[in-house]
């Protein structure tokens, strides 16, 4: 199984070599066997007596993350879809993409996607699943932006990336929480520990996280907005990713976690409510579209909503119908996308207003489309698979006899009506899609190309898919026992036995609902021109695209504004922030922890001999205050000199002759340097500032000074240890061989500090020399 999953990924390494011969042979031909082999490999698992297969490979054992593959009915259904439709899409793309396109890029992206999608559906380890999940987002991003020179493509790619990665991260939060609760990273083991998860207080959180991940990926309301914009991708991509596989990853996720999450009223309400809303909204909006792929995009949204709703119902019949519809939707929607691509390819336009009457030019495509469209609409004919799943959907919506059904009786009763409403619009846009394109008058003048039938190679893939539609339609029990039932069993937890019949009798309620859909749908489709004006009333500007654009725009402008607000480029402001931060943070912390301990016991008493200290201190204080208020730079320098010399004399008074010596020299040199660069300094002007700013500055500086003073006093008041200085006094002579304790400390006891201070001075000297000598700008000349 691991070979099947990683084969496309390994193949991407070889694609550049194949691409060299692309002028002679289309790159796609080399790659076609890969998905075909994978498909054939997985086909052999189909059978009545299928039982799950597990494989395990080491990856990160220390984190309990291993590459575990688990092939049960659900995975089997999905891998067959992925590889089967992958093969057909590959074949289709060979004819669709011209050799002048960047084929290497295209197939590399596509194969990365294929690998990661297989990985998503086969992984049993949640983290491996998440890894592959993000790979699908990234490769989808690359594929949507394949024609990167188009602005719309880039917009669509970015949008899908933002939305799906948002959901992906939410999923990650969900699986981390799950791992935290259960202590395992395997999905099967989590299912075994279902009770622990449900009883956990974190359960609602897990539910929301996982549902958010699934809803964004599967384009559920209101995260559906990325899917219509993803239609800028080449049509094979739209057919593959955005109808059959990637958008079903969210469905798969919900189905995979159903054994854990389902059965809770919250799950029922969220999933089925949003599913139904998506169904109705998607089908309602699809009628409004003018672009063929736009119709199909909203149709996909709506059909996904329907599947999601059925998963939400959670009854035996609903889950069976959901699985069945996953298969059916993949067949008919894939073929319809391919036909839309053919129409685009052969006429040069996808705008339904310009198309019409193509039936005479493209009879085969029209026939294939006919089957696809009527299957999508759920028309009651025994050879259309869409009808069966639609009928089962109606039936399921009528029998919500399971859990949660009694939770909101009103909602439960509304579901069948909403289902019928959505289906009516499904019928309308299906008819609009077919009759708008292939019937009516041909508008030859408006088309860029003269329409003609597509080459046979392009028609093979949709033909096979339509064949699938009809075969499943004619013999539904062919797929039922072999793998639909196994899939449903994997989701539901116990065996689901259900036969599919076309005819249940005339009074069978779902049949009546189907007939209502067909009759009302036909009426609405015929009168579409008359009521189409409703779209100018609702939704008008209420679409979620506006919300998305607003959020993206506002986030950008708001963050620019905020950044410009505080990153002013003025050093004065930055110093202000630093001081305020220190003042507030340390002030509050000291206050809260009762750090301002003031103790007077350790203080010495004031004597007559202390008068000089006070006088010198007073002199320094007056000089320091004088510096602030002086207007003249030279006098500021000289007054500052007074402070420096005062400090020197304080050192003398407190018996530190070495310090006093150094301080005197440094002070003199500093004053001399100030005078040296005096001419280059700007005049010291009084800048007239608003009183409020001056006031703020004074408050902050006074506050900061006060804080430092209090901290110093508190530090002095709480001496908890004996100072180490006695040791230095005693050992200076015996160990260091000197009487000058300060110097012994500097060069013997703590010599390393001195070394690096010398280094600092050396660097400073070199830097000054460099700054003066090396001027690269014009100033040097």
């Amino acid at each position, binding site marked *: 199984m691991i070979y099947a999953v990683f084969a496309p990924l390994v193949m991407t390494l070889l694609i550049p070599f194949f691409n060299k011969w692309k002028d002679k042979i289309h790159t796609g031909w080399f790659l076609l066997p890969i998905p075909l082999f994978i498909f054939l490999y997985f086909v052999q698992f189909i059978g009545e007596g299928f039982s799950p297969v597990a494989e395990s490979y080491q990856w990160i054992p220390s984190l309990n993350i291993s590459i575990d593959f688990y092939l049960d009915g659900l995975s089997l259904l999905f891998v067959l879809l992925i590889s089967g439709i992958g093969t057909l899409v590959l074949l289709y793309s060979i004819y669709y993409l011209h050799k002048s396109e960047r084929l290497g890029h295209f197939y590399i992206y596509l194969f990365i996607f294929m690998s990661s999608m297989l990985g998503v559906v086969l992984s049993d380890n949640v983290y491996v699943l998440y890894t592959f999940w993000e790979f699908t987002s990234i490769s989808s991003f690359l594929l949507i932006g394949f024609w990167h020179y188009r602005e719309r493509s880039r917009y669509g790619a970015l949008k899908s990336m933002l939305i799906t990665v948002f959901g992906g991260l939410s999923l990650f939060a969900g699986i981390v929480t799950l791992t935290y609760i259960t202590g395992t990273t395997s999905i099967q083991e989590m299912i075994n520990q279902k009770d622990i998860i449900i009883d956990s207080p974190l359960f609602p959180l897990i539910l929301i996280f996982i549902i958010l991940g699934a809803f964004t990926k599967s384009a559920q309301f209101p995260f559906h907005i990325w899917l219509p914009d993803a239609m800028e991708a080449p049509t094979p991509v739209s057919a593959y990713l955005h109808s059959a596989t990637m958008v079903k990853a969210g469905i798969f996720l919900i189905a995979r976690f159903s054994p854990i999450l389902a059965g809770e009223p919250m799950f029922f309400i969220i999933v089925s409510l949003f599913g139904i809303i998506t169904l109705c909204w998607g089908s309602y909006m699809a009628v409004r579209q003018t672009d063929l792929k736009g119709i199909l995009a909203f149709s996909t949204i709506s059909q996904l909503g329907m599947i999601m709703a059925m998963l939400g119902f959670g009854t035996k019949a609903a889950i069976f119908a959901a699985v069945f519809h996953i298969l059916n939707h993949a067949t008919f929607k894939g073929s319809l996308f391919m036909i839309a691509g053919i129409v685009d390819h052969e006429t040069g336009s996808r705008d339904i207003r310009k198309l019409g009457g193509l039936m005479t030019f493209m009879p085969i495509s029209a026939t294939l489309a006919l089957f696809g469209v009527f299957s999508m609409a759920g028309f009651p004919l025994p050879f259309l698979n869409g009808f069966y799943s639609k009928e089962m959907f109606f039936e399921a919506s009528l029998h919500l006899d399971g859990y949660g059904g009694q939770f909101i009786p009103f909602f439960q009763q509304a579901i069948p009506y909403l289902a019928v409403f959505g289906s009516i619009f499904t019928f309308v846009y299906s008819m609009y899609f077919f009759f708008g394109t292939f019937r009516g008058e041909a508008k030859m003048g408006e088309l860029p190309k003269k329409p003609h039938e597509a080459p046979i190679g392009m028609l093979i893939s949709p033909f096979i898919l339509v064949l699938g539609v009809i075969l499943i339609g004619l013999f539904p029990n062919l797929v039922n026992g072999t793998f639909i039932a196994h899939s449903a069993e994997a989701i539901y937890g116990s065996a689901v036995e259900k036969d599919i019949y076309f005819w249940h009798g005339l009074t069978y309620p779902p049949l009546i609902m189907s007939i209502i859909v067909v009759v009302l749908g036909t009426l609405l489709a015929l009168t579409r021109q008359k009521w189409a004006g409703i779209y100018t009333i609702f939704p008008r500007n209420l679409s979620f695209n506006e919300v998305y654009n607003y959020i993206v725009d506002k986030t950008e402008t708001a963050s620019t504004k905020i950044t410009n607000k505080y990153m002013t480029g003025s050093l004065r402001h930055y110093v202000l922030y630093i001081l305020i931060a220190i003042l507030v943070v340390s002030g509050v912390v000291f206050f809260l922890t009762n750090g301002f301990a003031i103790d007077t016991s350790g203080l010495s008493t004031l004597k007559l001999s202390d*008068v000089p200290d006070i006088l010198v201190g007073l002199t320094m204080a007056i000089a320091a205050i004088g510096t602030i208020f*002086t207007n003249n730079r030279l006098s500021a320098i000289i007054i500052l000199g007074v402070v420096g010399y005062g400090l020197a004399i304080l050192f003398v008074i407190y018996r530190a002759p070495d310090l006093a010596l150094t301080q005197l020299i440094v002070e003199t040199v500093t*004053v001399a340097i100030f005078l040296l660069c005096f001419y280059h300094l700007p005049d010291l002007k009084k800048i007239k500032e608003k009183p409020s700013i001056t006031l703020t500055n004074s408050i902050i500086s006074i506050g900061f000074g006060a804080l430092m003073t209090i901290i110093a006093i508190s530090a002095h008041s709480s001496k908890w240890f004996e100072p180490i200085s006695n040791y230095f006094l005693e050992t200076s002579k015996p160990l260091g061989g000197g009487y000058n304790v300060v110097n012994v400390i500097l060069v013997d006891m703590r010599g390393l500090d001195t070394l690096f201070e010398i280094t600092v001075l050396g660097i400073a000297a070199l830097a000054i020399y460099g700054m003066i000598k090396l001027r690269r700008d014009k100033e040097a000349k």
Partner: protein
Amino acid sequence: MGESILHTVTIICIVFISISIIILLYRVLKGPTNPDRAVALDTIGVNLMALCGLLAILLVTTKLNDVILLIGILLFIGTIAIAKFLEKGVIIDRNRN
């Protein structure tokens, strides 16, 4: 007795010199012109030398004598620097050769 008189006299001298420093500070701060300030700073320096000497007597130590000499030298250099600056605007002349 002699010790005590010396002590008291020293402290009185220190106080007076400190007061003179404060008065000189007034000249530094107010000093209508910069030369006034320079002279005041120079005089403060001389007072500091005296202060250091008196403190050395008070603390009965010879370790401060270096400081007194250093102040003398620095004061001279500093005053010359300021004077030269006030006169020429530069402290170190460029070699014109």
